[in-house]
């Protein structure tokens, strides 16, 4: 699957299927700090992501004071 990461924007390719929480753990990304979006729609932690899915992992923490 194609995974789009942000800040800065970049893409990686992951082989095979994954559940959302497994993908986050593999990339060492905190659940509370990210949303996972598949083909434009939010997906929960137990969703199974397929080989041809396009996934965006969007960070949600902003730093301004």
């Amino acid at each position, binding site marked *: 699957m194609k995974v789009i990461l942000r*800040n800065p924007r970049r893409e990686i390719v992951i082989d095979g299927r994954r559940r959302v929480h497994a993908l986050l753990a593999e990339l060492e990304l905190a659940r509370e*700090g990210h*949303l996972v979006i598949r083909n434009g729609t939010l997906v929960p932690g137990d969703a199974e992501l397929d080989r041809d899915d396009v996934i965006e992992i969007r960070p*949600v923490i*902003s730093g*301004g004071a």
Partner: protein
Amino acid sequence: MKCRTCREPAIIDLPRHNANFCAEHFLQLCRRQVAKAIHDHEMFTASDRILVAVSGGKDSLAVWDLLVDLGYRADGLYIALGIGEYSDESRGYAERFAAERGLVLNVVSLREEYGYDVPTAAKATGRVPCSACGMSKRHLFDKAALDGGYDVVVTGHNLDDEAAVLFGNALRWDVEYLARQLPVLPARHGFPRKVKPLIRLTEREMAAWCVVRGIDYIIEECPMAAGNRHLGYKEALNSLEEKSPGTKASYYLGFLDRMAPLLADLAATGADSVRPCARCGAATGVADEHAVDGEIVCAFCRLVERSAAHAPVSVDLVRKKSRAERRATMEVEAR
């Protein structure tokens, strides 16, 4: 995963509620949390005119959307801070949001109207960028609210923001800041009321609100924010939250419930006398006032004077300098 309310497929899991929600019932939860914050803290009523501080980021666009959705009368104010591409892009998001919904967005440009921008102000005054920026924003929101006849200024501070600030204040035991860290800052002479309707919702929930509602917002960070202390506090709290969901809410909302009342006397003593600035007329607290040739001049007017006289400074220059400064401070603190 199924929605707790309707058993349809869920789009989001919220461990702190020990539940999952479909899009419709997630939005319902957000609306209820905002309505509860507005009601519990008596933030405003349907007849109040509201000015939302809009940055083009998820929180400010979400709070504006939520207020309009709940039937309130809310206009926006965007301040063009002159932070390179980041500012140009974020302004675009704010303007498109307003235009698509037929909402009123006022825009104030630091460069066009006051002759400076945030990077230049940071350099000219020796402040860190967020301090120069925060002071400019506070002054201009106060001014816009008073000039425009608004009853209240709304900001998009969410639960994560407030918990992180609380954490920082508690680490330093800064009791005066603790006493004033409330979701409602009452109006006092020359200052409008300021409120934070998102205190019961997390950053992740606000980003999700935007995704579900189809709101495009600036995802990139302000280049000045990188590596600041506030971010470190948020990450620390989030790692506690992952192990023990609900920690952030019980920390901050518990503070409001049980600790803030004990500090109420202290909060009241902060409401000292104010005098008008000789240049702009803005109410100026004793702590902020400063005599220039025997006149009271507010901190904002002094910042404008120094910054507008300084040659424009690029974002990168300020960033590099502040990074070097941070390293230097860390080295000093480590000793």
